[in-house]
């Protein structure tokens, strides 16, 4: 047993941090906030720089153009990027690209991966439907084969980024006459496809997600991923990767440090109160406990294992802690805690606590609800019966 990071990991963290110092300008962060990381000239430059370093694909095998590094490097990379609030990528990198790499044909890899790595291709996830949320496998959007094409009809919801994405990673029913998990396929649908309508749904955290409607949308058979009716394992694989990202400690540690920094600078009276310090120490402890689960999860993947219960534990811990940090922070900040960033200098920590409180619920149900996560821990981790 050895809990110390070897020198090569510490060197890598220092390298990532130097890189961030060079690139982290107010202009870039502003563009990121305004576009939710989807596009913009500075973001594009930054992604080119990232791509040049090969970090987005460093954990891929060298035969696929990667660097063959283990997942602990990815853990460090994500932790640093999240801590500093950098646009290191989105689900396209962390969830879609690994799925294409794993399940796509050579032709599909060749057509999609370079664009993703350059940042030219952005994918939105077309999974949920109005009546297929947590019970995703009951989805009803239909794809029917006509010659060399598939014709898609139906409706998706929570298709975040669809309005700025180039493609939708779409799960559709290709066989209604088999058990529900066995009749689903995954398609890559360009957002420019005729018959596709995108309608925004504005959310309480200031951003928006979308509904997407498919009216005789036609997709060539070559854009079906991983075989007809073989979609369910692909979706599960992608969700597992998504959960690794959701469990990242970096942004939580950042929130805590922003709170502490603000109290030290502007509310010394509060920070000197032992009760306040006690609450802060509790949050620090919970950050350590959450990070323990995240590292454990990354470690298991890095040595070739598939952490099912561990990934779920890390996801639950991170997302519930996010709510607690935001809530506690606002309590400690008093009425100032309610001020959004539009209030400028008056808003503590640029309104990050207030905004985090508004966005926090998403993480607890997104990427698999925490209730489902607990079901998984009980079944896969503890062997409790169905």
């Amino acid at each position, binding site marked *: *047993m*050895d*809990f*110390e*990071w*070897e020198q090569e*990991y*510490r060197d890598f*963290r220092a390298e990532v941090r130097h890189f961030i110092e060079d690139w982290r300008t107010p202009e870039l962060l502003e563009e990121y906030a305004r576009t939710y990381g989807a596009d913009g000239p500075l973001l594009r430059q930054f992604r080119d720089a990232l791509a040049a370093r090969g970090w987005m694909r460093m954990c891929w095998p060298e035969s696929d153009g990667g660097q063959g590094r283990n997942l*602990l490097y990815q853990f460090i990379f994500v*932790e*640093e990027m999240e*801590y500093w609030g950098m646009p290191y990528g989105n689900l396209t990198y962390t969830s879609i690209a690994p799925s294409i790499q794993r399940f796509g044909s050579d032709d599909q890899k060749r057509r999609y991966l370079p664009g993703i790595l350059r940042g030219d291709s952005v994918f939105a996830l077309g999974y949920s439907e109005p009546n297929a949320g947590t019970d995703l496998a009951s989805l009803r959007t239909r794809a029917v084969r006509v010659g060399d094409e598939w014709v898609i009809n139906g409706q998706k919801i929570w298709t975040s980024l669809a309005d700025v994405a180039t493609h939708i990673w779409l799960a559709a029913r290709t066989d209604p006459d088999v058990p529900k998990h066995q009749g689903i396929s995954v398609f890559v649908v360009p957002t420019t496809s005729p018959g596709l309508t995108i309608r925004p749904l504005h959310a309480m955290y200031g951003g928006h997600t979308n509904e997407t409607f498919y009216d005789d949308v036609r997709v060539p058979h070559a854009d079906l991923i991983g075989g007809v009716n073989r979609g369910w394992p692909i979706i599960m694989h992608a969700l597992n990767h998504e959960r690794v990202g959701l469990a990242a*400690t*970096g942004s939580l*540690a950042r929130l805590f440090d922003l709170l*502490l920094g603000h109290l*030290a600078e502007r509310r010394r009276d509060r*920070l000197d109160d*032992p009760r306040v*310090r*006690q609450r*802060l*120490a*509790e949050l*620090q*402890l919970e*950050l*350590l*406990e*959450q*990070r*323990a*689960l995240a*590292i*454990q999860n990354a*470690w298991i993947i890095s*040595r070739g294992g598939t952490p099912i*219960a*561990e990934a*779920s*534990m890390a996801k*639950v*811990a991170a997302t519930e802690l996010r709510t607690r940090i935001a809530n506690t922070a606002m309590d400690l900040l008093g009425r100032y805690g309610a001020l959004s960033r539009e209030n400028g200098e008056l808003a503590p920590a640029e309104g990050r606590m207030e905004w985090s409180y508004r966005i926090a619920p998403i993480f607890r149900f997104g990427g698999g609800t925490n*209730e489902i*996560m*607990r*079901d998984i*821990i*009980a*079944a896969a*981790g*503890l*062997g*409790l*019966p*169905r």
Partner: protein
Amino acid sequence: MNLDLDPTQTLLRDTVREYLAAEVPFDRVRRCERQERWDEALWRDIVRQGWLGLPFPESLGGAGGGLVEAGLLVEELARRAAVVPIAEALAAALAAVQSAPAESARALVQGLLGGDALVVPAVLERSDVLGDVRSPVRDGRLSGEKLFVDYGQFASHHLVAAREHDAPGLYRVELAGARIRSAALRTIGRTPSARVRYEDVPAEHVGGADALAALLATARILSAVQCLGSAQQALDMTVAYAKVREQFGRPIGSFQAVQHHAANMASRVASTRFLVYEALHALDRGNASPRQIAFAKASASRMVPEVTMLAHQIHGGNGMIEENDLYFFTLRGKERSLAWGSAEECLAEAAACVEEPQQWLC
């Protein structure tokens, strides 16, 4: 980095576990509780097996292992609710090794490994503040009162925290023939503990403030291991019970409400396990900060009541009766959560240095 046990560590854990499962039925623990005794026979077996030598260097007759190995041993004994002074004896000897002059450390470790001596710490006074040491030593003689001297009535020596010329330190006091009055304390953990008065007894200086700090750190992290062991056992018992206990025609473990309790228990245990073994490893390498130890113990101390109370919720009435083994871990776990720094004390220490930068992102 390697977060898995290596093969030797796995073998050690399994050996101890199998031995205890075969040799120490829980009724033996019940008998110790009833008679207010310790399990002296088990202690002699542990001495004979050589397990006590795990964390000591080979030059002192030890096995040259580390604190992680010691932790595995302590955890397995906690999972069996064994009534032996494992954490106390190891913490006292490890503190001596870190600070005492070579000869006296050698004597202390060899006394422990040979089974000739049992040295347990005596630190707390009536104030119940770990750093508050007032018992005076003058001209090699010690006086004062100590509380919560765990296994104190069964030891051959106490390693007493005392103060000489206003400097705190550790002193070895031999109990045989010394003017000592001792009374048993009855705690929720049902393991032996004593209140002890020393009346001008001969005391051998073992180490200064550093030695005391080393004792507090080691004893604290080993008490965290004991919390972990209690919680792990309660979790395992609960999962096993939920698989076989049927209500409404199905195992209660198939109900989502029960599953979610169990999932929460498992997650809490997993977090604490990481932090506790990480702290053991860091302490072994000499780079554990007091804050790291405090956080690890705070985690264990907060976790164990949560986990054992959920274990009771799932066991229902069956978990409350003393024919069932669950109560050992509920009671022992809570008692250990208070020993060598409760959650409250550990968090207060962490709160005092809350502004110091965290090393977690380095």
